């Protein structure tokens, strides 16, 4: 119990003290995960819509692949990305390895299947009469996409929250392609792994609480937004 309560006090101390390395890790985590989520939404929403709305040959197979990708372990994504981004890899010339950008790419790969799969499921569950009436009114596909996304907005929000939860707590990718470089690519999760490895359990625990608070704030913000939309 002692360790745990110490973790609480240190978490508060860490935040109040304005420790540079802690804030740099928080900033890295927030910016990387937010950017990754944004990119995943931009790519994933239309793809999820196509997958849920249209019927075409091989749709079932595609659905199965996307659903399987949901189970992709982060270390595997990290490992594959490392071999590709390494100076000896195919994309080595872009100098992406051990940068925050590399983590963003990995997190997009991680969250894209979540967005696509959950959006597709949402689109499928939207009342089919919406589509028939929209088509009857002569709506273009892009307008149908818009209307559907608005209709399914709560479900899509859930998809976004789920994806955000997965990428903000992810460690395999950040460690492999970020490299856990202090003040540069150290995120809250890699910092926790490092502190635990150093035997600084209290600091690790404190950082864990910090991460939890971040997730809490994001979710509070979203639920406020949800209520606004519902009115």
């Amino acid at each position: 119990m002692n360790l745990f309560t110490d973790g609480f006090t240190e978490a508060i101390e860490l935040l109040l003290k304005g420790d540079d390395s802690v804030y740099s890790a928080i900033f890295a985590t927030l910016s990387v995960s937010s950017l990754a989520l944004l990119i995943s939404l931009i790519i994933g929403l239309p793809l999820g819509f196509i997958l849920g709305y249209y019927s075409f040959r091989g749709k079932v197979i595609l659905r199965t692949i996307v659903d399987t990708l949901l189970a992709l372990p982060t270390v595997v994504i990290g490992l594959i990305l490392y071999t590709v981004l390494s100076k000896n890899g195919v994309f080595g010339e872009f100098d992406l390895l051990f940068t925050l950008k590399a983590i963003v790419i990995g997190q997009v790969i991680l969250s894209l299947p979540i967005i696509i799969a959950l959006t597709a499921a949402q689109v499928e569950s939207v009342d089919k009469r919406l589509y028939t009436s929209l088509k009857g009114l002569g709506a273009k596909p892009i307008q149908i996409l818009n209307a559907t996304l608005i209709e399914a907005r709560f479900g899509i929000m859930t998809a976004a929250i789920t994806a955000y939860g997965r990428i903000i707590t992810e460690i395999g990718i950040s460690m492999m392609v970020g490299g856990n470089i202090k003040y540069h690519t150290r995120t809250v999760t890699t910092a926790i792994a490092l502190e635990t490895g150093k035997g600084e359990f209290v600091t690790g625990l404190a950082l864990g609480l910090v991460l939890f608070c971040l997730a809490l704030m994001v979710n509070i913000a979203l639920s406020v937004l949800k209520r606004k939309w519902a009115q």
Partner: protein
Amino acid sequence: MKKIMIKSALCITLLLSINANAKESLMMATTTSTDNTGLLDYLAPKFEKDTGITLKWLATGTGKALKMGKNCDVDILFVHAPTSEKEFVAKAYGQNRQEVMYNDFILLGPKNDFAKIKGLNVRSALKTIKEKEAKFFSRGDNSGTNKKEKSLWKKALKKLPESQKWYMQTGQGMLSTINMASQMNGYTMSDRGTWIKYMSQHENNNTMKVVLEGYPSLVNQYSVISINAKKCANAKEELAKKFTTWINTSKIQRYIADFRLLGQALFIPNANK
């Protein structure tokens, strides 16, 4: 919708600028001990102040650090496995290998030393651990410490105690491994720097002590190696050279000697000797 698009575009540009870093930076792969002890945290700001170069380091085992060097993903190595290092330079992956500092390896065990290791020499100590089947915690990660430990086992037993039930390979860093040995009442081998760091963390609840030390075969030499631009066109040879020269100056060598915990020196500088 348009508003959202503009906002998103703004967000992206803002976020993409996060790691636009105008300063020159040197990428180093190093062992866990230089990082865990805080030595690099102590040296990096001084290096940046003296040369304007930002030092970025990846702390892993020496084995992985050498691999990263071969893959051209770093510019310089700060490692401690002389045999592998010399091979690395001989194969022209690295150049300008300079010895920087040393400390020594020690055998740690529970305070009651139930296997009665204290007083034995290296060879009989390891033999005794095997005979009594005392739990031994190995890094098992091909780090410099692990390489050293394996070479000692080979000398003592003619082969590695691989897959023995008392021989535990943790696959983790030195501090975690000492911690595991302490929790499970076993023996382990550590570099002195990390051991002093461990003692400073566990002043009130330390269950471990040094059971073997002071043999010439236990010297732990740290060196820096620049990555050869002939093998890796992108390697920042100039910056790596600056670091090597810098860390070998008498001023920085003195800083290393002054780096202490609990009043004890963690590393002893020995550049140009």
